[in-house]
């Protein structure tokens, strides 16, 4: 399965995932404490440096991951220009971009298996209700079945198109959900056949 981890190796890739996540939490809290655009820009410099330090491919990847932000930046820009509080708007926009970029940076430099290990460690206190093994199994199963169900949804849409002049649209939902329910029954049986969920 495709992940958002960057194939471009950076020094950040070698840091333990737990350290990066803790640093991200502290850094994000700092961003929300800062109000002045100048201070925010200054605080954003390390993130910018780390992204730029990864090279052109890495930086372009980081840039693409910021794209979903543009509607919100547009709203903030229009709003604050209209109300005449441009500096405040600039601060909000900067904070947004830097916070998202910093979080993406952690995602881009941490392997999926390391992230899963952190999740399992974070969930350790829940062991009496949720054994780590069961959590790991649930994550693996879900990842395993994303391509299977995507394929199924595509097939259902194609089967609809084959007999209808219109696109299937929301009509794929009921058969797709039924397919997931059927698969869940079969997979439960296969899991039981190999010793169960423990």
């Amino acid at each position: 399965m495709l992940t958002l981890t960057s194939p471009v190796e950076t020094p950040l890739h070698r840091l333990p995932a737990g350290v990066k996540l803790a640093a991200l939490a502290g850094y994000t809290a700092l961003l929300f404490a800062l109000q002045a655009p100048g201070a925010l820009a200054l605080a954003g410099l390390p993130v910018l440096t780390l992204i730029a330090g990864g090279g052109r491919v890495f930086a372009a990847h980081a840039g693409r991951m910021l794209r979903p932000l543009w509607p919100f930046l547009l709203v903030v820009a229009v709003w604050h220009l209209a109300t005449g509080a441009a500096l405040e708007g600039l601060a909000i926009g900067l904070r947004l971009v830097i916070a998202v970029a910093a979080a993406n940076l952690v995602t881009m430099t941490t392997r999926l298996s390391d992230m899963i290990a952190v999740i399992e460690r974070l969930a350790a206190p829940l062991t009496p209700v949720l054994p780590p093994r069961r959590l790991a199994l649930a994550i693996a199963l879900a990842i395993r079945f994303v391509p299977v169900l995507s394929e199924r949804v595509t097939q259902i849409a194609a089967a609809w198109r084959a007999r209808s002049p219109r696109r299937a649209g929301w009509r794929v939902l009921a058969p797709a959900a039924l397919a997931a329910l059927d698969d869940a029954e079969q997979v439960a049986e296969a899991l039981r056949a190999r010793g169960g969920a423990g």
Partner: protein
Amino acid sequence: MSRPAPPLAPDAGIRLDAAVVRLGGSVVLEAMTLHLTEARIGIVGRNGSGKSTLLRLMAGLIAPDTGRVRVDGIDPATDRKALLRRLGILFQNPDHQILFPTVEEELAFGLIQLGQGKAEALAAARQRLAQEGRAHWATAPVSTLSQGQRHWLCLISVLMMQPATILLDEPFAGLDLPTQARLARAFAALPQRLITISHDPAAVEAADRVIWIEAGRVVGDGPPGAVLPEFQAQMARWGAVDADTDLAG
């Protein structure tokens, strides 16, 4: 043909004593009594004849409503842990059997279920892949495997648990001829007891014993030469009748 004979303890083999299964009020298996000890067994029947229910019953995935099922003396529905060593299943659709995103995780899972550590199990999985000349498969996503490769993966992950008996559910359905031939060759070389469930007489013609199930009962039981001709003749007669109008349930 020299195959290692299955252990001949008094409780060896799969034994059903008047096992009855009802699903949603209707009887799917009627008081079935069987003792399976042969190395190669075929179970044939039409769709809906109850043969898949029989497979589930032998595998302990369902318990009989009345009667008794024992696999080498073990109750398959309750003593799951002991059963894992005795019996494995190859499901018809590999997509329902493969539980993990990568090949090595899938292979290691069974060993972890048997009590091995994760690192040890992964190492064993890689070693097995290397033996089979597929070392490069270890971290491959299972979604990139072909249908035949997925069947192979399912077979190896069952074999790694070293069960004494393997149930094969329609093992050749939907496979192209070279894949069927490869898989059949792999099955033939196995020391395990194999129980093949199929609607296709060709899939069981090399068995030592063939059991024909119809409407939840055994209607034929014996060597393939004795059971299969009558089975095929009956299937042809039913096929010649045009209507297929009965609804289940």
